[in-house]
């Protein structure tokens, strides 16, 4: 047990928890004023919902004793046996319960990311049911495959430092699937749907950046050089992507505030899988490439009139797919001796493993989400009524309004 590591991981837990309210603000600023509380709640609720699910069985499905490389057993259900002692598989220098708590924060924010796809029209009851099913059927198994002891992708040697696959690709492609099932907002493409408060979004992006230090540097699970490197790569990628996005926006007119904030978040999502395996200079390349990839994906989505409303797919799915592949290019054991070398350091095999993990995550999360969403749509319906949508979800779903 190492008290320095434990102290850092306690702080990291708090930092990653902060990302969920930060995401709520990030999304909340981009919707119309009649749907602000609804959008905030779609994110906030996960601190409560997954806070309970993870303790009851989520952690155990992800990190319990391996069953066939596919899922964890129920031996850690109710945090049974998740105690204050180190665990040989997951946390050699910190309490097992602290590792489980840190992982809980990841499980909380991941489904919150998806909510950007269906804001301003989702039925709250169907959303709650979907979220619980998604956490159980998509997040927990995927988390086991990539990070759980005995998980099949982990055994193949996939490198995903802080959740490029488990968190961002899964959320991005699930968002795409859900948006296809629920359909566009009423009047989408005809009336402009202006963000009601870009200041809220900028504040959210700033707090996300702060929290991301816990997310990525905390994923070292120790207060050591790998953590510091992860913090630096995280910062570098966000900074570079923010700058590049500013240029792209400028080329199309003016350097947009919303665009710069978005670019920063894209840089953060892109570097997440790579952060503990690559150098800060490589992170600059990752951020610089992620920005145009996401930018033009957004333009493409918009042209196709697909209302994946807040671009979870473009920002998280696409950026982190690139980041996970780039990990297979730039990873070096000089940064992290527990990692592996990538293509540029003489290990072409790694790029194949990374590509496989990306493809598997895309397909698995997209298909399961599509099926679950379709079933819910057929049975209880995913959308609010047309009148409720017109009035706005703040009043029609929650009986409150943001600004009196």
């Amino acid at each position, binding site marked *: 047990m190492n008290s320095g590591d434990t102290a850092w991981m306690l702080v990291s837990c708090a930092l990653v928890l902060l990302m969920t309210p930060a995401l709520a603000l990030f999304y909340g600023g981009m919707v119309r004023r009649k749907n602000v509380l609804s959008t905030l709640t779609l994110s906030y609720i996960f601190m409560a919902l997954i806070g309970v699910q993870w303790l009851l069985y989520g952690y155990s499905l992800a990190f319990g004793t391996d069953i066939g490389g596919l899922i964890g057993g129920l031996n850690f259900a109710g945090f049974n046996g998740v105690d204050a002692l180190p665990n040989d598989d997951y946390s050699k220098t910190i309490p097992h319960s602290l590792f489980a708590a840190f992982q809980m924060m990841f499980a909380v924010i991941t489904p919150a990311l998806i909510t950007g796809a269906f804001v301003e029209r989702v039925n709250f009851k169907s959303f709650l049911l979907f979220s619980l099913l998604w956490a159980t059927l998509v997040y927990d198994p995927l988390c086991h495959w990539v990070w759980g002891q005995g998980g099949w992708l982990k055994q193949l040697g996939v490198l995903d430092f802080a959740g490029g696959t488990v968190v961002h690709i899964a959320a991005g492609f699930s968002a795409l699937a859900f948006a296809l099932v629920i359909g566009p907002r009423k009047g989408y493409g005809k009336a*402009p749907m*202006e963000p009601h408060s870009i200041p809220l979004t900028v504040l959210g992006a700033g707090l996300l950046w702060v929290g991301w230090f816990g997310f990525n540097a905390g994923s070292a699970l120790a207060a050591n050089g790998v953590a510091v490197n992860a913090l630096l790569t995280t910062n570098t990628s966000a900074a570079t992507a923010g700058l590049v996005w500013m240029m*792209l*926006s400028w080329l*199309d*007119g*003016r350097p*947009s505030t*919303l*665009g710069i904030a*978005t670019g920063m978040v894209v840089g953060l999502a892109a570097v997440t899988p790579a952060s503990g395996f690559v150098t800060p200079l490589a992170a600059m390349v990752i951020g610089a490439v992620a920005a145009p990839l996401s*930018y*033009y994906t*957004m*333009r493409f989505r*918009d042209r196709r009139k697909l209302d994946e409303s807040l*671009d979870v797919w*473009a920002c998280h799915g696409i950026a982190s797919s690139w980041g996970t592949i780039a990990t297979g290019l730039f990873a070096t054991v000089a940064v992290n001796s527990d990692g592996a070398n990538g293509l540029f350091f003489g290990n072409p095999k790694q790029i194949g493993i990374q590509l496989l993990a990306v493809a598997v995550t895309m397909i698995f999360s997209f298909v399961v989400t599509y099926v679950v969403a379709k079933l819910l749509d057929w049975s209880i319906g995913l959308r609010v009524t047309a009148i409720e949508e017109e009035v706005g979800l703040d009043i029609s779903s929650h009986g409150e309004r943001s600004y009196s």
Partner: protein
Amino acid sequence: MLIFYFGDFAMLKKIEAIIREDKVNDVKDALMDIGIVGLNIFEIRGHGRQGGIRLVGRAGTYQVDMLPKIQVNIILSEHNMEETIQTIRKAACTGEPGDGLIFVYPVEEVIRIRTGERGQDAVMYPGDIDEKRGRGKAKDS
């Protein structure tokens, strides 16, 4: 020009001027100068011939056709109407599309809630346009 003063029989009018947001202070000051004391303003959105503007979004730009404008409402006696209209025009005009419009409506009756005054008496203020031009004085000061 000879102005006839009909006392309590003067017609009341409502002027509704749609102007640019950035002209609101110029118009207010110009009206103050000629003695138009009482007015209300509203923040509104709309468009006429000017159309809209393009704003920059997350990736690329989009068109917004409802632009913020200011609506100024004034209730006054008919004999003050033309001078007020010309004052607003002069202060609000830039010569570009989007300067706005002025509408004039007849007003049935005006009642000041505190005193119960009606008609022209209810729209007179100390130091207003009528007092300045010697056409009467607000009873209440």
